[in-house]
C-alpha cells in the first residue's frame, strides 16, 4: 500500500514537474475554459442581463470541455515521448500509474476551476461563493468523477486511431450523471433561497459515483492497458 502511494505520487510529481517547466497544458486549458465561458456569455446574455439559471450549466460545460482537452493533451504528450510505454514496463502496480495520472489531472483541473468559478460568478451575477464549502465539495467530487473516467479512457485511447474525436465521443455519454448532478447541485445552491438539502443529496450521489467508477477503473486499467 505504501509502495502503491509512493509510485502514484512520483508519477504525479513527474507530470507536475513537466508542466511547471513548460506550462503548456495549464495555459492552453485555462485560456480555452475562459474563451468557452465567454462564448456562452454571448449566447446567454440578452439585453445586458444573463438568462436566469444559466450559470450552473455554463460552469459545468466549461469544466467538461476543458477537462476533455486537458486529458487528450496530457496523454498525447505521453504518447509523443513514449512515456506511457516506459511506465507500463516499469515493475510497479499498473493501478498506481493510473492513480498518479489521475492526481496530476486533478491538480490541473483544480487550478483551472480556481479561475473559472469566480469568472462565471462575475459574468453571470451568480452567488457562487455564497456557500463556499458546498460549492467546493460539489466541484471536487464532480471533477474527481469526470477525471476518473476520463483518465482511464484517455489512457486507453493512446493506442487507438482518431483518438482526438473518440475521447469526447466516449467520455460525454459516460459522464452524463456527473454533469447532471453537478449542474443540479450547483443550481440548487444558486437559487435565491439556497436548497442545502438538495445540494447535499447531489454531493452524496457524486461521492457514490466516484467510489464506483474509481474502483471499476482500478480494476479495468490492467487488462485494457495490456496489449
Amino acid at each position, binding site marked *: 500500500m505504501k509502495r502503491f502511494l509512493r509510485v502514484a505520487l512520483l508519477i504525479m510529481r513527474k507530470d507536475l514537474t513537466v508542466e511547471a517547466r513548460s506550462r503548456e497544458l495549464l495555459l492552453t486549458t485555462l485560456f480555452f475554459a475562459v474563451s468557452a465561458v465567454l462564448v456562452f456569455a454571448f449566447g446567454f446574455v440578452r439585453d445586458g442581463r444573463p438568462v436566469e439559471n444559466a450559470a450552473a450549466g455554463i460552469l459545468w460545460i466549461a469544466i467538461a470541455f476543458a477537462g476533455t482537452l486537458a486529458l487528450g493533451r496530457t496523454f498525447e504528450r505521453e504518447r509523443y515521448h513514449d512515456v506511457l510505454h516506459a511506465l507500463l514496463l516499469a515493475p510497479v502496480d499498473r493501478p498506481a500509474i493510473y492513480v498518479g495520472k489521475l492526481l496530476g489531472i486533478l491538480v490541473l483541473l483544480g487550478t483551472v476551476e480556481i479561475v473559472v468559478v469566480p469568472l462565471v460568478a462575475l459574468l453571470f451575477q451568480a452567488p457562487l461563493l455564497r456557500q463556499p464549502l458546498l460549492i467546493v465539495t460539489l466541484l471536487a467530487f464532480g471533477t474527481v468523477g469526470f477525471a476518473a473516467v476520463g483518465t*482511464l*479512457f484517455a489512457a*486507453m485511447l493512446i*493506442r*487507438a486511431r482518431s483518438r482526438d474525436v*473518440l475521447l469526447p465521443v*466516449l467520455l460525454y455519454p459516460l459522464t452524463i450523471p456527473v454533469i447532471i448532478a453537478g449542474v443540479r447541485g450547483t443550481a440548487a445552491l444558486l437559487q435565491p433561497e439556497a436548497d442545502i438539502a438538495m445540494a447535499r443529496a447531489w454531493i452524496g450521489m457524486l461521492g457514490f459515483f466516484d467510489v464506483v467508477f474509481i474502483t471499476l477503473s482500478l480494476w479495468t486499467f490492467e487488462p485494457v492497458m495490456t496489449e
Partner: protein
Amino acid sequence: MTQRLFLPLVVAATVVFAVAPLLIAWAPYESTMGLVQKIFYFHMPSWAAMFVSALVCGVASAFFLFKGHATGDRIAAAAAELAVVFGLIGLVTGPLWARKAWGVWWQWDARLTMALVLWMIFISYLLLREYGGPGSEKLAAGVALFGMANVPFVYWSVNVWRTVHPTTNVVPTLVPGMRIALWWSLAGFLLLYTTTMMARVRLESQRASLDRLYRDLDD
C-alpha cells in the same frame, strides 16, 4: 447445436410476426388514447430486446476483458449492434405515441433519458470499434462495462424529476385482449433478437476463422 436450432427459430419468429398484427388489431381499443396506443405492442418489446442486448453485451465484455475469451468479444460486438437497432425502433415509436398521449414528442423523463444515454453509449461503442483501429476491441469492452455501471446512476439522477412515462405496473392491469397481444409481440421481438444475434455471432466467428486461415497461409 446452434446451427440446428437456427432454422426452426427463424420459422417461429416469422410465424409470430405474421400473427402479431392480427392480435394487435383484435386487441380492444384503449379508452382515452384510441388507436395510437397500439404502438405500445411494438414499443415495449423493442426496448425489452434492447435491454437484453445491453446486458448480454456487458456480461460478454467482462468475460472478454478479464478472462480473455475471444467468443466474448464476438458476442459483445453483435449485441452492441443489435442494442442500437432495437433502441432505434424504441426511440422512433416512443415519440410517435408521446405526441398523442402527452402532447409533446420528447420529455426529459427518467426512463427516456436513461434509455437515450444507454443508446448513445452503444453508439460510441460501435464508433470506437469502427474507427479505433487495431486493438480497439479491448477498449470497447471497457466502454461496455462502464456503460452498464452507468445505467443506475443516470436513472437515479433523473428520477428526482417528475415522471410521466407509464411504469411496469401497467402490465398486470391490462385487459386480457391487450395482454395476449403484448406478450405475443414480446415473444416475437425476443425470437427476432435471438435469431439475428445467432446469425451475427456466426458471421463474426466465420470472419475470425477466415483471418486465421489467411495468417496460416502467410506463415
